[in-house]
């Protein structure tokens, strides 16, 4: 122990090398922990991305770029190369090729599954670099550790969660690190690197707009604070020019950076910084009196020119107006009224307060302290943290999904706080503590007294004198850290590692019961339907049907064509007569619905049904009306009080078809909605029940063919039910009614 101590503290040079070895080891440990904590369960989820990666690996990059996918969005098809962010697939494709090159042929599926955990390790590293720029490497290590296990990030990066966010958060942090580096050094090289990673980010995730707006905002705040400098100018100009040009090379993005309002801030700040630079140059050239007049004239002129320019361009439509998704960021009620399709996604709902604590645990209360500490130092990069914190907390409050962008900055600020606390409390009188492994072991070492400390020793040292308070605070924080780790582990294993396709429940005796209805149903589809069968379902299940059942779907998770989705909504919400025509027109062979009434699975289609109605109403306000699905008291009911529109809707009929027959008469109970159903179940005329999974979660119906004899399906069922065809004269209807033939004039 004493030799270790002497090595650690006696000799500065050897201490430094030991420290760097320690740092590397710690970072590797953090990365390993980050990866390991994401391996609780492995289910590949966004099947589309996986399919795209497979295609990329099989056909090569250029074919992937030109890929026209005719199996999704039937019958429109999808110009996949131009409608996705290829970053994720290209990354895994590159890894696949790299591994092959070193004679490690790995299945692309394994790469896809492990990509997110792998990149979470890199994210931890990027966070370390970023935080190191803010404070020191001790805080950096803490931030990396936080980032590695914070549930807010794990939620999107468990093994198999092969989504854009898997690599995007790493790119986000790394781009910010490079930006801070560029702004600090005023280096065009770092600015260029930042642009390069910005390009990578653009190619990987739609959330790149966050960077596109945050960096200009940072620059604007700096300019307004009077902190303009040549460094900022060089960094920003090189980032913007290179980054924008690069981002326009992504086919999906194209000309958006110069056309849409979301990107105008970056362009505006680019213009502004040129002006500021020019004014700065002028200041050096002319006397101050002339300069003032000149400045005033310039400001007025530029304001007028810029304003009229912006207005003209917006009015003439050169710059696209703000998109609906953007409005919904400012007004949480906007989407509900104008674009139900966005509001229908649970991820787009405003965040509930508990979920902040759930996702971030103690970091959430360390976060404001960290921001406060940044105010105390307030160099250029600290301004960035403040701007980032404000923006990200707002957005995280508006949309659950954006919790993801808040998590990194919370980790960084919390790390700054904890590290500051340890800096303060782990020193006894004369400051000398090493803090890169400022974990719970620390208190043991603090007894060591050494002179000639080398760290964080502010000139007028104001320390804590009482050992008790030191021990208390440090001990408390150590406990908090341990608790944090426990919380993260618990959340990860319980909440974020349960894949959506397999449900787990507890039996009365506590044993685990796996509910595997989804896979059962998808497998049934795969084995029992023709390859070109078209399946209609609500869009949530589009990717899963496409991926697991390998069948054509009408709409999927990425369908943009609102009308197309609304068509499905209308088919579900209308009566059989109307729906049947829609189904025929779209050549639908099977309809798949999710029904949780038997099991109590609340994420079923009846609960999503109102969204289908709303979306359909947005397109056909005359034919589908949400009001008609509510009872006159305004309740959404499925039992005997349900409205006729509700009872006649295809979705209701498909959900409860034959359901009451499972129970004794009059006892049918919907466990999700807690409703007792009428003992007479709905009757289906135009659909045949094809498949119902074990727990009735997935029900598949086959669309009947047209009748051979030209009858409609209602009279067919009536005939087969033994009833006479009603309302038609002639035939057996007897003498009195049958004297006149049916007077249909035929030409």
């Amino acid at each position, binding site marked *: 122990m004493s030799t270790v101590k002497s090595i650690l503290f006696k000799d500065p040079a050897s201490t430094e090398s030991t420290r760097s070895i320690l740092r590397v080891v710690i970072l590797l440990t953090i990365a390993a922990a980050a990866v390991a904590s994401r391996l609780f369960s492995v289910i590949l989820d966004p099947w589309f991305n996986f399919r795209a990666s497979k295609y990329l690996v099989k056909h090569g990059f*250029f074919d992937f*770029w*030109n890929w*026209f996918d*005719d199996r999704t969005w*039937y*019958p*429109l*098809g999808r*110009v996949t*190369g*131009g409608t996705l962010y290829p970053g994720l697939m290209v990354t895994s494709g590159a890894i696949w090729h790299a591994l092959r090159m070193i004679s490690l042929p790995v299945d692309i599926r394994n790469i896809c599954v492990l990509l997110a955990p792998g990149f979470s390790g890199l994210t931890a590293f990027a966070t370390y670099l970023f935080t190191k720029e803010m404070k020191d490497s001790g805080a950096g290590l803490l931030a990396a550790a936080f980032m590695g296990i914070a549930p807010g990030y794990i939620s999107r990066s468990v093994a198999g969660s092969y989504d854009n966010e898997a690599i995007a958060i790493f790119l986000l942090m790394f781009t910010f690190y490079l930006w801070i580096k560029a702004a600090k050094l005023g280096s065009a090289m770092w600015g260029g690197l930042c642009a390069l990673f910005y390009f990578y980010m653009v190619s990987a995730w739609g959330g790149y707009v966050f960077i596109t707006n945050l960096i200009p905002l940072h620059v604007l705040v700096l300019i307004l604070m009077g902190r303009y400098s040549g460094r900022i100018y060089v960094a920003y100009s090189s980032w913007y020019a290179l980054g924008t040009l690069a981002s326009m090379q992504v*086919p999906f993005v194209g000309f958006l950076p110069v056309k849409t309002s979301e990107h105008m801030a970056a362009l505006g700040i680019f213009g502004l910084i040129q002006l500021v630079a020019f004014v700065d140059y002028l200041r*050096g050239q002319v006397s101050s009196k002339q300069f003032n007049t000149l400045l005033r004239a310039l400001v007025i002129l530029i304001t007028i020119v810029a304003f009229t320019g912006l207005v003209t361009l917006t009015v003439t439509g050169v710059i696209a107006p703000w998109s609906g998704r953007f409005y919904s960021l400012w007004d949480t009620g906007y989407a509900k009224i104008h674009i139900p399709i966005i509001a229908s996604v649970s991820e787009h709902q405003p965040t509930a307060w508990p979920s902040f604590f759930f996702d971030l645990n103690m970091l959430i209360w360390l976060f404001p302290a960290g921001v406060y500490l940044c105010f105390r130092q307030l160099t250029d990069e600290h301004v960035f943290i403040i701007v980032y914190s404000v923006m990200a907390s707002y957005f995280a409050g508006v949309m659950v999904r954006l919790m993801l962008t808040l998590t990194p900055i919370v980790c960084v600020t919390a790390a700054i706080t904890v590290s500051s606390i340890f800096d303060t409390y782990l020193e006894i009188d004369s400051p000398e503590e090493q803090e890169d492994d400022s974990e719970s072991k620390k208190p043991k070492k603090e007894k060591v007294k050494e002179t000639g400390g080398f760290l964080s020793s502010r000139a007028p040292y104001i320390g804590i004198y009482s050992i008790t308070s030191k021990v208390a605070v440090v001990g408390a924080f150590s406990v908090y850290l341990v608790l944090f780790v426990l919380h993260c582990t618990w959340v990860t294993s319980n909440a974020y590692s349960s894949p959506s396709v397999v449900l787990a429940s507890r039996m009365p005796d506590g044993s685990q019961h796996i509910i595997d209805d989804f896979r059962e149903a998808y497998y049934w589809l795969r084995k029992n339907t023709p390859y*070109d069968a078209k399946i209609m379902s609500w869009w949530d299940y589009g990717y899963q049907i496409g991926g697991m059942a390998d069948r054509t779907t009408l709409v999927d998770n990425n369908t943009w064509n609102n009308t197309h989705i609304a068509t499905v909504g209308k088919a579900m919400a209308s009566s059989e007569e109307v729906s049947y025509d829609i189904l025929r*027109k*779209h050549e639908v062979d099977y309809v798949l619905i999710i029904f949780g009434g038997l099991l109590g699975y609340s994420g079923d289609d009846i609960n999503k049904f109102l969204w289908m109605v709303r979306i359909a109403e947005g397109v056909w306000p005359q034919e589908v009306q949400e009001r008609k699905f509510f009872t006159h008291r305004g309740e959404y009911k499925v039992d005997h009080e349900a409205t006729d529109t509700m009872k006649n809707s295809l979705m209701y009929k498909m959900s409860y078809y034959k359901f009451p027959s499972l129970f004794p008469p009059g006892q049918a109970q919907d466990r999700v909605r807690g409703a007792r159903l009428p003992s007479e179940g709905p009757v289906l005329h135009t659909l045949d029940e094809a498949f119902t999974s074990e727990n009735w979660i997935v029900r598949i119906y086959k669309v009947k*063919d*047209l*009748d*051979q*004899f*030209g*009858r409609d399906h209602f009279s067919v069922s009536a*005939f*087969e039910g033994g009833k*006479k*065809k009603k309302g*038609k*004269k*002639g*035939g*057996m209807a*007897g*003498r009195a009614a*049958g*004297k*006149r*033939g*049916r*007077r*249909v*004039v*035929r030409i």
Partner: protein
Amino acid sequence: MGLTLRSVLTALISLVSLSQGISLTGPRTLLVLEDDVKTQFQTLISDLEARGFTTTTHTPKSTTLSLFQHEERVYDNIIIFPTKLKGLGPNLPSSSFLKHATAGGNILILLPSSEDDNVPAAIAELATQVDIFLPPKGFAVVNHFDLADQVEPEHNTLLVDLPSFQSDTKNYFNSGEDKAAKLLYRGAGLALGSSPLVQPILKAPRFAYSYDTKEASSFADDENVFSAGKQLALVAGVQTRNNARITFVGGADLLADKSFTKVARTNQMSGNRAFAKDVTAWTFKETGVLRVDGIEHWGEEFGQGVVNGDVYRIKHDVTFSIALSEYSYDHFQPYVAPADDAVQFEFTMLDPYYRIPLSASSSPLTQHKNSTTYSTTFKTPDQHGVFTFTVNYKRPFLSNVHEKRAVTVRHFAHNEWTRSWGISGSWPWIAGIWVVVVGWIGFVGLWLWSKPVVAEGKGKKKQ
């Protein structure tokens, strides 16, 4: 694969045609009749047997009769003769006929000519299901203006012209020698619903009407007239969606031996025997059956090397061709659409983007013996997606042709657009780029090589 199938089919057909002409459905024919009725239809039955049909006779009440064995159709064709009985036996409910037709079998139903005879309940139900309405017992068609026989007081025997249709419909019902022959008809007539699957084959003369003979009043008014004139069908044919055929003959005498005689008034032979042949031939699918011998489509972008490919590109010429032949008693012959009709073709994604009449092609890509090749060339629309080449040719008395071929129409790939320098409008911009590049390099060169002017006094001020 298609080739082998076709050769098997041709072999099969040539084998079959060695014997007499034969129905495409098959020769097994069930006659549902009582023995005393059989004597009235000797000629009809022997004519059928001469054309290669094998007949099996059962009485309506037969207990051994079963239309299905092991869920397979036992008979290809059924003829139900009029019966004196109240109803058909328990083995012949209306649903069994529907099942028979669903399985592709044909049915010819002869309704009683006498207004005193019953129509069995199963037949009436069947008629209702296919949108044909039978009058109740006691109705008869009458025509006071064109008497077949001056002697008959009720004017119940009608003289009807051979069927004629609009110029866009093929006529399969006047194949007899004498086109001017009259048909002798006696029966109640049928009223037809609006179903497109039902077609009147023989319509009543303009002044004929069907009325209740049991009604005391000596005149017919709107209340007791069942139907009249051209709206009153005497013979009607139903073709189900799977091309099974059900024909209702309003009066069985039309096909009975006693009508195969001279018409008393004109002293000419009646056309009934030839008409009986036409009606049975159509019902049992010896005529009016279309066959698609081949569908080919190819695009300009690939040339004729790639036929029936899966992928096309927007805004490119595509040629589509379909070879159609028609069955006539014992052989397939090229199908020629009637003068005013056109075989139409649709290029569809949800809605048709094109609906083009096809024209007979003189030089088809693949020669099909005994068929006409219809084709057209069009430009794919500026819309990507899964399109279908559709030929939806459904005409009265012809079997349905509904052919669909789904193909993908893809967008322009990124390297298929005109390059920037190929667009003359882009030249100023390209020139601009190069001017900037060259200018910048020049400027840098100038900056590096020009010797700074030493002016120390000024130079100190800045930097």
